[in-house]
């Protein structure tokens, strides 16, 4: 990780529970607002990050789940990067994962439409990582 990236890195971990989504949205929109970016784009980021957390919560959480979601935000080149990571799909098979991916269609559609670059990795018994980037206004 480069020095400039580290200098801008904000990390947050929340329990895999929907009641903490609002906190993530507050953090993410506050974070994005620090850079040269329109209010509308900040809202886009808010929706996209929140949708990625939805995926993590819905795919893998039981009632008394003790797992966390880790969200990282940083600045790289002329982009803001948001990485949403969760650890496990509790033994779900590759097929199940494919199915989940389908179900989450609306969420993934929003993410892909609202962000400039999106990369997602889902693996059986591995968890998921979604990385998304938003271009900043050039100075």
């Amino acid at each position, binding site marked *: 990780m480069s020095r400039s990236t580290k200098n801008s890195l904000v990390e947050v971990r929340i329990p895999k529970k929907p009641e903490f*989504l609002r906190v993530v*949205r507050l953090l993410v929109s506050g974070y994005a607002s620090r850079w040269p970016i329109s209010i509308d784009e900040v*809202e886009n980021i808010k929706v996209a990050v*929140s949708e990625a957390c*939805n995926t993590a919560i819905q795919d893998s959480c039981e009632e008394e789940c003790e797992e966390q979601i880790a969200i990282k935000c940083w600045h790289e080149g002329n982009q803001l990067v948001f990485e949403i990571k969760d650890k496990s799909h509790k033994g779900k098979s590759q097929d199940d994962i494919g199915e989940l991916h389908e179900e*989450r269609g*609306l*969420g993934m559609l929003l993410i892909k439409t609202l962000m400039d670059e999106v990369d997602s990795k889902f693996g059986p018994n591995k968890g998921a990582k979604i990385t998304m980037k938003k271009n900043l206004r050039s100075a």
Partner: protein
Amino acid sequence: MDLMIDVKKEKGYTLISVNGEIDLYNAKELKDRVGYVCDDSPDGGDLIIDFKDVDYIDSTGLGIMIGIKRRIAESNGGLVLVLHSDRINKLFDITGLKNIFTITRSVDDAVAALKKG
């Protein structure tokens, strides 16, 4: 800011006003409340859902709106959504839901739209 849902029976339709952020946390609450209204309504009962002070809706909320639409269509009722903010309109736009729903900017327009059928 939790979700606030207000239900009013008017002449010929039911008006549901929603305030707050609709997300995975509270979307089920919205689904249940609207479900009760549908249970109580005669077949062909019309519904206006006013997104009064909704400044955030996620895919769960959008999914629930699709379910409500389906249910009301089955009972031959009409459904109009009142979306005040540009943001929320945009989300219905990019998901293609704009083409499925009747959407207005005010409750008056929604009432008019119901009358037209």
